[in-house]
């Protein structure tokens, strides 16, 4: 690759960044949705009565078992069949967010189950109700333990946002294809640039999660059973 191609890529970087902002918006939307639904699903799986727990397991089974691109099509084209005209962006947040919630539920479920049962009994002995015991005693510890697994999910869904072009969301890969369509010779350099953007964001994101993990660590508590 000729070095001069990089000077040709430079003017296109703002356009790529405009697309990348859409990926970040998708990420924020889907990961918040996934977090909220994921925590609730995990709580239900671990603590709710059996029939409800089974329903939650079926939910995670479905969203972990269907390919993401299929979920995107189901939400975008499928919902409109029922007279719900969702925008491509919203359909992408829903499809990718619910899928992520199923994975996040697994992370949280493992964390809930790793909190020794004695803590629950101790909380109940102190007079806290079952719900309060979960919210004030188990949940904070479990969330802290989940951070490592969660950083993995973060890196994974960040890259999944590029799939949203499949239903017409103009994100960074689409901006790249606009540029490529009029400058065939820039195909490779443009994708290298996109790769760098994702690498930087993954690095910064994981760094932030790592810092949070260290900050929230309670000395002496880790590894106890």
């Amino acid at each position: 690759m000729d070095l001069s191609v990089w000077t040709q890529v430079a003017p296109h970087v703002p356009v790529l960044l405009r697309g990348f902002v859409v990926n970040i918006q998708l990420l924020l939307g889907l990961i918040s949705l996934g977090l909220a639904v994921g925590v609730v699903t995990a709580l239900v799986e671990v603590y709710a009565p059996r029939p409800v727990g089974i329903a939650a397991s079926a939910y995670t089974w479905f969203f972990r078992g269907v390919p993401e691109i299929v979920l995107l099509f189901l939400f975008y084209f499928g919902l409109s069949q029922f007279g719900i005209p969702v925008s491509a962006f919203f359909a992408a947040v829903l499809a990718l967010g619910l899928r992520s919630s199923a994975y996040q539920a697994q992370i949280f479920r493992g964390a809930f189950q790793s909190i020794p049962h004695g803590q629950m009994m101790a909380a109940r002995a102190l007079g806290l109700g079952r719900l309060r015991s979960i919210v004030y005693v188990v949940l904070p510890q479990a969330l802290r333990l989940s951070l490592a697994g969660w950083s993995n999910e973060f890196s994974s869904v960040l890259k999944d946002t590029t799939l949203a072009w499949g239903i017409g969301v103009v994100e960074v890969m689409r901006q790249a294809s606009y540029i490529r369509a009029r400058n065939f010779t820039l195909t490779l350099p443009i994708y290298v640039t996109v790769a760098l953007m994702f690498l930087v964001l993954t690095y910064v994101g994981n760094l932030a999660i790592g810092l949070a993990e260290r900050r929230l660590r309670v000395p002496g508590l880790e590894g106890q059973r």
Partner: protein
Amino acid sequence: MGQPKYVVLSDIAWAPFEWVSEKGDYLGFDLDVMRAIAILEGFEIELRDTPFDSIIPAIIAGRGDIGASGFTITDERALVISFSEAYWDSNQAVVVRAGSGLDLDMVASPGRLVGAQRGTTGSFWIEDEWVPLGVTLVEYETYPEAILDLLAGRIDAIVQDVDPSKMAVVQYQGQIEIAGVVDTGEQFGFLVAKGDPKEILPRIHRGVAALKDLGVWDLLIEAYFGPSLGAIESAWEKCIAILLVERDPLRYAQCLAAELRP
């Protein structure tokens, strides 16, 4: 009552039929034709960029009204959507590395690796006509990827529509060339939902006929097929207000063609 509004779906990354300018505007032959027809026939359009493979599903699902994206008319597609009359003849060009000395007969011979974009007429052509001769078909998601592999020597030739191929040859000056053109009798049509429930096709047909009568059609062809994309973009920017604001297709096409004449 306002004018009806139709959502036009197009995969806007296929110059010169449709592409996004450096400044982010949607332009191209298909799109300007749609804009001009909308003015002549009194409807409004909303252009929506959609992946090529998703356009037909989107129209079936009611997420769009018109597909304008260089669609080849095929019996298979006509089972699920309705086509307009053909508006464009497009044959397939065979692109090879410059200086390779390959001609059409040499490409269509045993042991050759020939690339094409997945789902396009080029790949169907290779499959039907050349694979029985011993050619191996290599499919790519996009045309530029195929060119990269051609340049890298991993394939011997690429089959793609004539106009994008010409554009590729201009961009890769001296590196690739057109070995020949295969007459596939391929024609493009606009498409709408099966059975045309909104009665859009008659409007498209009247619009195309009017554009041809007025001379707009030929001027647009002159403007879009030949000049470099950069030149078309600056001419488009100068003239487009005549179409969108003054709503005068003829003066617009004259302006565009005049700007691009040497």
